[in-house]
């Protein structure tokens, strides 16, 4: 079991900066994020977009901000559990929280700070009624174990990087029977990937079914049958072993929605007059995930909330100690 002072759920900019503010108070942090890399939306949605309202930076790329935050928190040696979603929370008899992730990692701390942004990035699912019964057996939204699809007849749907990259991977490495279904005849993936996929299509390594979309799915002995509808409303059927609909990720509030926190319009209600505490003692919510009168979903507001929140967290971790605000200009940064 991992033990720390503050478990931070969400490794976006606000979660990362919380490590810094906590570190100044000698509080250790462990971050959990469903994404495989730190940075949250900044890394996943708009890494190459400039941000203009970070104080002191007339313009900074989102990915650059994440890199700088990672550098800034380095002295405080935070722990990371990435690619896993915080799933359950339980209060121990000693008053500490224990959070378990989807992959079974357990983390214990007296304070939990939810900096979950708009939620857990989860795969977008096709709007097909009986799809759930095929999930994780015939239908996969994320490729975790590519070898599962070796020598299989697979159909990939989507027109982005993920769809193209996996189609190329399977065609190049496993010589699997790969079909790619896309609702348009344009791809938004990297030009190089698109060109390679088109070349493979000419060579017959990838069969492209363009201007079409899967409209239904049914069982066919050990396989599945995909019902495909073209833009001209032509209908066809494809038998295959697996279908991989890869339509990108979208944030959902996820398991924290079931933790007994007061939720208002997909956000966690907090006390902004004091310390951004939630209705559960010891759990705070900061950044885009929280709501209060006058809330602004801005990175800079999340930074402010983090600084206020850790002062309150300090009293939870050390109920008998008093903390005095110190300035970094006076004391410098003393890591651990």
């Amino acid at each position: 079991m991992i033990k720390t002072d503050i478990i931070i759920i969400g490794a976006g900019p606000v979660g990362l900066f919380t490590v810094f503010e906590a570190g100044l108070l000698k509080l250790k942090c462990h971050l959990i994020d469903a994404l495989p890399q730190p940075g949250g939306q900044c890394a996943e949605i708009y890494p190459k977009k400039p941000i203009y309202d970070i104080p002191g930076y007339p313009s900074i790329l989102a990915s650059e901000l994440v890199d700088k935050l990672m550098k800034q928190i380095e002295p405080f040696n935070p722990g990371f559990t990435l690619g896993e979603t915080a799933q359950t929370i339980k209060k121990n008899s000693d008053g500490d929280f224990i959070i378990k992730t989807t992959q079974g990692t357990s983390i214990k701390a007296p304070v939990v700070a939810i900096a979950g942004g708009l939620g857990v990035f989860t795969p977008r699912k096709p709007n097909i009624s009986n799809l759930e019964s095929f999930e994780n057996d015939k239908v996969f939204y994320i490729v975790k174990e590519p070898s599962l699809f070796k020598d299989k007849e697979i159909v990939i749907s989507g027109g982005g990087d993920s769809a193209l990259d996996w189609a190329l991977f399977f065609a190049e490495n496993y010589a699997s029977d790969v079909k790619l279904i896309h609702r348009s005849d344009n791809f938004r993936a990297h030009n190089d990937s698109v060109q390679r996929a088109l070349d493979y299509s000419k060579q017959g390594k990838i069969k492209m079914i363009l201007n079409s979309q899967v409209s239904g799915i049914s069982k066919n002995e050990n396989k599945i049958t995909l019902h495909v509808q073209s833009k001209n409303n032509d209908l066809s059927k494809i038998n295959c072993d697996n279908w991989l609909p890869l339509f990108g990720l979208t944030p959902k509030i996820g398991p924290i929605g079931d933790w007994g926190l007061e939720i208002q319009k997909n956000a966690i209600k907090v006390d902004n007059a004091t310390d951004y505490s939630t209705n559960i003692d010891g759990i705070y919510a900061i950044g885009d995930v929280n709501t209060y009168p006058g809330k602004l979903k801005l990175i800079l507001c999340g930074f402010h909330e983090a600084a206020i929140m850790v002062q309150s967290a300090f009293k939870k971790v050390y109920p008998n100690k008093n903390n005095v605000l110190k300035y970094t200009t006076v004391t410098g940064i003393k890591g651990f």
Partner: protein
Amino acid sequence: MDVKIHVTDRQGKEQIISGPTDMSLNLMELLKVHEYPVEGTCGGMALCASCHIFIHSTNLLPEISSSEQAMLDDNWDSKDNSRLACQIPISENIDLLKIELAPEDL
């Protein structure tokens, strides 16, 4: 001036909302102001499709950029009349525009 927009929500309820043309707002922001369940996750950069709508009138709209088209191409519920509300500025052109919110991402 204020423009009027006919909005049909995901439950099929129609309502007319109005918005000012002089505040650099886009339609996603206006829908949020009126408390429609539109996330606007990416903040209006045509990078998430959480403000996906269907257009039901013939107003002259700005052309679809390549990034908007890419998001729509990759969106399950897209139709020929799909747009991202964040890419439509509140201007005189969209007075009496009729829109419908697309289904929420599953």
